[in-house]
């Protein structure tokens, strides 16, 4: 009898407990007491010496022992089930032996997986069966069991490696692994790497049948992820969450929306922006590389329906925080308006809602609709011909002017801010008569709107925004003196806004703030508002260079230095010329 046959006979005849002790002796690094380095190499040496058939024989024995050990775990009550007794106590000596054996199995599997290409399919299949058995105890194994957390982590890592091989049966290793990783990532002690591990496994989410009743716990875990701050913070986390919105089975998308909506209602900026990013990724089908074109079109259509629901709720809500939150979510799409496909999307999803809402009897609806109208201006469809496109644009210009004349001050506030924003962005594209009409109405009427100070403030803030557009400076230089009286407005915020406008003008070369309002008036205002910290500080900032010139000398020095450098360069270049 040769040494190999003797070895296998010895292995087969041992109980799993003895086998564990025996293998531990061979694998010294696993035993903490061992100091002999020659022993530590024994198992690896033996495995290296084995041929393919020997490995098959080895895994056959290990498979048998594994099933024995799983039976033993069941007998001990270490595998949790619905009817398991939570008060069960485990014998620590047995515990340790079982834990050592499982640990050994994983170790041997790891050694084999390194040299997987050397082995036959039959051998790999035997090894995979063992790994499959271990995967099946990943969640049921009680945490009370000795070294359970460490063992679970080792098993999970082996299963992840198996998933990454992208083999045909890799799906067999995720049913327990995905919930395990989700639980780890949702634990209070979780780290970013836990979420990244879930991200690596994201395609496995789509392999589950969400119509099946047994999916409840996994669905619960996935929905909990939608609320987890770490998922919202990490890009990988947001990509995982975007995948949830693409799942239509089992009301998954509806449930996800129900979970997300209350969060958006709180109006937290970071959270809302994260949800917006998730919606954008979901609409772009960011994590669905393997889906066919037809499937992607269907998914996009379903997500567009969701977006329309959000838009409708945003415009019709009476909760200001919810409106702000939803606007932040949708702003992720508005910011991508320059992309052709997003532009078409915005026209598609807004058109059925916005025109009607802008003419609603309820002023809150009109004001909220007008805010969205200015956010998405101009709505245009690539499929329209030139005439249709011009008609649509003219309709929007007419609306712009009519919103400024709305009977409700909230709508006028939105219209004043929005129209100024449009003038800044599209100064060249807006017809001259619309510019003239808008500006003259803003300066002549709304700047002196007595119904609410917020309208006057909106006009001032809007005009300040227009100054960012250099082409507007000539016209603005002529019209701004018409609102000089706002320096002495009754409302403090309006006065402050006006001074901030003057500070903005101070930074321009084409307009002088003292041409808009005289310095004497500003000084009188400073004396008058001496006790109003914000205003007096703003006026001090405005007048700083007038009464406390600072960098006069430095400017001359810099100009001289620049001239000197320019002349030097010119001289060098001239000398090099032929």
């Amino acid at each position: 009898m040769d040494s190999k046959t003797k070895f296998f006979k010895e292995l087969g005849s041992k109980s799993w407990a003895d086998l564990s002790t025996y293998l531990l002796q061979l694998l010294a690094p696993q035993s903490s007491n061992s100091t002999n380095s020659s022993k530590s190499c024994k198992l690896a040496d033996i495995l290296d010496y084995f041929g393919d058939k020997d490995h098959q024989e080895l895994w056959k024995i290990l498979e048998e022992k594994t099933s024995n050990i799983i039976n033993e775990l069941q007998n001990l009550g270490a595998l949790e089930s619905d009817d398991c007794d939570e008060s069960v106590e485990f014998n620590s000596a047995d515990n340790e032996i079982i834990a050592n054996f499982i640990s050994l199995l994983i170790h041997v599997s790891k050694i084999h997986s390194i040299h997987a290409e050397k082995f036959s399919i039959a051998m790999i299949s035997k090894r995979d069966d063992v790994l499959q058995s271990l995967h099946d105890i990943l969640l049921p194994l009680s945490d009370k069991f000795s070294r359970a957390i460490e063992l679970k982590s080792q098993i999970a890592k082996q299963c992840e490696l198996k998933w990454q091989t992208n083999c045909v049966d890799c799906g067999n290793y995720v049913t327990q692994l995905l919930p395990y990783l989700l639980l780890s990532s949702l634990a209070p002690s979780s780290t970013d790497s836990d979420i990244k591990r879930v991200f690596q496994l994201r395609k496995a989410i789509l392999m589950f049948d969400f119509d099946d009743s047994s999916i409840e716990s996994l669905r619960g875990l996935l929905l909990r992820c939608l609320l987890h701050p770490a998922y919202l913070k990490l890009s990988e986390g947001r990509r995982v969450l975007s995948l949830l919105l693409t799942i239509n089975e089992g009301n998954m998308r509806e449930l996800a929306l129900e979970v997300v909506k209350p969060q958006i209602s709180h109006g937290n900026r970071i959270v809302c922006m994260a949800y917006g990013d998730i919606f954008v990724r979901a609409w772009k089908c960011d994590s669905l590389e393997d889906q066919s074109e037809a499937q992607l079109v269907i998914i996009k259509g379903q997500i567009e329906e969701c977006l329309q629901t959000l838009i409708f709720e945003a415009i019709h809500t009476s909760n200001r925080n919810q409106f702000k939150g939803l606007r932040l979510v949708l702003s992720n799409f508005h910011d991508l308006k320059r992309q052709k496909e997003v532009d078409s999307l915005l026209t598609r999803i807004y058109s059925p809602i916005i025109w009607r809402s802008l003419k609603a009897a309820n002023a809150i609806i009109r004001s909220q609709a007008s805010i969205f109208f200015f956010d998405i201006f101009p709505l245009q469809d690539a499929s329209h011909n030139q005439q249709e496109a011009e008609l649509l644009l003219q309709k929007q210009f007419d609306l712009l002017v009519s919103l400024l004349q709305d009977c409700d001050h909230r709508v006028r506030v939105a219209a004043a801010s929005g129209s100024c924003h449009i003038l800044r962005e599209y100064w060249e594209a807006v017809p001259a008569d619309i510019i003239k009409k808008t500006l003259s109405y803003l300066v002549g009427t709304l700047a002196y709107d007595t119904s609410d100070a917020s309208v006057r403030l909106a006009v001032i803030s809007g005009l300040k925004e227009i100054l960012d557009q250099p082409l507007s400076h000539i016209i603005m230089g002529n019209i701004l003196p018409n609102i000089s009286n706002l320096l002495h407005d009754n409302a403090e915020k309006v006065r402050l806004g006006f001074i901030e406008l003057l500070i903005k003008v101070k930074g321009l070369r084409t307009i002088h703030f003292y041409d808009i309002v005289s310095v004497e008036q500003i000084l009188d205002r400073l004396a008058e508002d001496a006790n109003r910290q914000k205003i007096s500080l703003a006026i001090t900032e405005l007048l700083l260079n007038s009464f406390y010139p600072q960098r006069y000398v430095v400017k001359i020095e810099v100009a001289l230095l620049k001239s000197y450098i320019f002349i030097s360069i010119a001289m060098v270049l001239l000398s090099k010329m032929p």
Partner: protein
Amino acid sequence: MNQGERCLSFIRENVRAAEVFYSHLHQVTKVGSAVKISVMLFSQFASNEENAENVVKPVENRRKKATAEKSRPTAPDSSFQFPDSLQDSAMRIGVLRVLLATLLSIESKLMLPKYSSSLLLLNKHFTSAKMDFVLSMFAFNQNLSPLSPVETSLIMQVFAIPIRLAKISSVATSSLSSLSFDVVIENFIVQSQLVNKVNVNGFISHNALVVVELVQAMDKWVSLFLTCSSIISNELFK
């Protein structure tokens, strides 16, 4: 126009606005800028300092004479002249108001170690010699106009700040000549009485607090007591 000239023209134009502007200066620029402008304004008063030597002796002689005659020092000395820019009493008050507002706005900041260099600059210019000189000017150049107590009150409030700060930074600038100080307080009280006669109610009580503040800053309680006693005794034996 430099910063000093602009500041004076600003004060001439709108004192209240200038007061507010310079009290916010440290917030829009640096604390050092506010110290610089304070020093610049103070130097307007102390620009005749070279005459200081000629000032002390006549003051001393007059004081001795006044004590001997048991009368208050009233005759102004022609050698004490405010600079041209401060000949006008309203302008002097304006400059003092701005100076006071600027120093008050930065006083708490100057107590912090991080602004020690600015405090050093302040201490360098607000010396006892200069303050003494300015006090002398106020003591003997007042023409008993209703505005004089205002100027005196302001100058005392202004001086209280560097003296307080000098105490914190343990710099010996607070040793003002008790002679000038006594004369200023004496004048101040006499003029306050005159002011009261022309029915500016409540002015004395307000400025009495200012005197107490400065006296507190300088630890000159004894001096104040003696001056007040001398005035009261004069009134009693008249």
